[in-house]
């Protein structure tokens, strides 16, 4: 009598694993992150490190509480990636506790309470960002000036520690508004775009030499990272393409209607937050639909919501809210948008009837001949 349990095929497999996917995404984030660290100096480094460590710590704690081994789960890199994505979307000079609280929300409330990796409804990083934004509006909208390393204005190591762990002493002197925020405030004061954008440089914006979140300033580098992911087949095209296209089309439409009121597509696409959302956040496997068609619906609605929130909403940036809203629609989209089964019509009925009719008709013809 055999006691070995039979092994089912296939007896070979691809080398892509969960860990390698997460690693590739982190590689893709590296250029934009490095650039962010270069722009915002030591405080940004501190914030990134604190957030990453806090994420790993919270993940370990949760696993301990659940009585599950923590090493295999930590090794898959998902907690690290969540922390990384969160840090990228934080204001670079935010105090350390923003990173810690954010990591706690992302890992505990965003992921582990649902049962861990793969079970969560909302993108953990975006959930944390939105909760932070609502709870700590001041800290979350204090955007540091661009102070690249090796320039005079850059804070040295000690100053960096002070900024991260003790707070800014004179925030007004070294901070300001992001472009989208600036435009929004100006418009509220009835200033048309031509006025508020008088000293604006498109190239600088695309390169990312501007105020913004730690890793979200450079649309170009984020785009490059996204291309890398597409090339490596980690993500597929439907979500990023549909999302960027819908923002471009809608903003283009409104820009043509009133170019003094509505920003041009170039500026919308050039804001790093949109690029980051399109390539790194919305494409999160867990919280996006499973089928290409579902992903296109998801992406275009995301784009629409981002545009609406940016243009008419209370906050200058809407990517976080838009993605959370669409995350909640993902199960619904997946329920209704399913692939057609081979040999069946869209509703799952066998193709038989029309086929047989066709065949019978043909046979009759043959007989008639």
């Amino acid at each position: 009598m055999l006691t070995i349990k039979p092994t089912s095929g296939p007896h070979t497999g691809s080398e892509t694993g969960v860990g390698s996917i997460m690693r590739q995404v982190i590689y893709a984030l590296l250029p934009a992150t490095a650039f962010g660290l270069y722009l915002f100096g030591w405080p940004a480094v501190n914030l990134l490190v604190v957030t990453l460590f806090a994420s790993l710590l919270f993940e370990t704690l949760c696993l301990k509480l659940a009585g599950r081994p923590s090493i295999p789960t930590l090794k898959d890199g998902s907690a690290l990636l969540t922390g990384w994505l969160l840090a990228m979307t934080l204001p670079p000079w935010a105090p350390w506790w923003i990173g810690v609280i954010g990591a706690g929300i992302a890992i505990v409330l965003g992921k582990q309470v649902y049962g861990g990796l793969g079970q969560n409804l909302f993108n953990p990083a975006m959930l944390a960002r939105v909760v932070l934004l609502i709870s700590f509006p001041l800290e979350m909208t204090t955007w540091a000036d661009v102070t690249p390393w090796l320039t005079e204005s850059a804070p040295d190591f000690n100053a960096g520690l002070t900024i991260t762990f003790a707070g800014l002493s004179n925030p007004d002197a070294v901070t300001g508004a992001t472009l989208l925020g600036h435009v929004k405030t100006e418009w509220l004061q009835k200033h048309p775009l031509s006025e508020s954008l008088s000293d604006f440089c498109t190239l600088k914006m695309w390169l990312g030499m501007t105020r913004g979140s730690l890793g979200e300033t450079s649309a170009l580098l984020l785009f490059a990272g996204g291309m890398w992911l597409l090339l490596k087949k980690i993500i597929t095209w439907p979500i990023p393409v549909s999302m960027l296209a819908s923002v471009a089309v809608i903003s283009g439409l409104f820009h043509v209607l009133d170019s003094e009121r509505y920003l041009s597509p170039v500026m919308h696409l050039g804001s790093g937050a949109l690029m980051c959302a399109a390539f790194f956040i919305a494409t999160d496997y867990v919280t996006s639909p499973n089928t290409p068609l579902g992903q296109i619906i998801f992406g275009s609605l995301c784009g629409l919501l981002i545009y609406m929130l940016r243009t008419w909403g209370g906050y200058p940036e809407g990517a976080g809210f838009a993605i959370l809203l669409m995350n909640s629609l993902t199960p619904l989209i997946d329920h209704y948008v399913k692939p057609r089964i081979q040999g069946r019509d869209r509703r799952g009925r066998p193709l038989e009837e029309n086929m047989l009719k066709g065949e019978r008709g043909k046979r009759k013809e043959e007989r008639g001949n």
Partner: protein
Amino acid sequence: MYVLSAIASLATLGLVLGWILAVAAKYLKVESNPVVQELEALMPGSQCGQCGFPGCKPAAEALAKGEAPVTLCPPGGSALAEQFAALLGVTVDLSGFEEPEILIAKVSEATCTGCTRCFKVCPTDAIVGAPKQIHTVVADACIGCRKCVDVCPTECLQMHRPEVTLRNWRWHKPSGQPAGAAA
């Protein structure tokens, strides 16, 4: 003031919705069909008593009243539980459900005295044999009710796992939960 108006509007909303529900419950009530017969028809009907009820009909009655879980019938397994749940319109979580092991009776020829007690109690006539002769169990007809085991004076009837052949061999269920998943 804002607080008060918020409380007032939400309370009103709650009251109105609650009232609508109450009305709906009264006037749109669907008379529930006596499903006992349908449930009983689904059951194995061998009156084996493994569920703890004296027979299939009492079990069906308890099921219809909601006094017994849909997983009550061991021979029916999860397949029957799924059918019951569909009929009663309840959802059932079968994730922790262990399929019962089906055993069939087998006569040990060395100790059988041919007393015929077993085939008198067999509900499906699965035991064949004549008085004073060794009896055998027809495996295909045995439902594993153990009635024969209880009456056998020499304990020559024992429950065994049915023999596995190429014909009835099945893939086992994959061992389930991944390393890091929730229990």
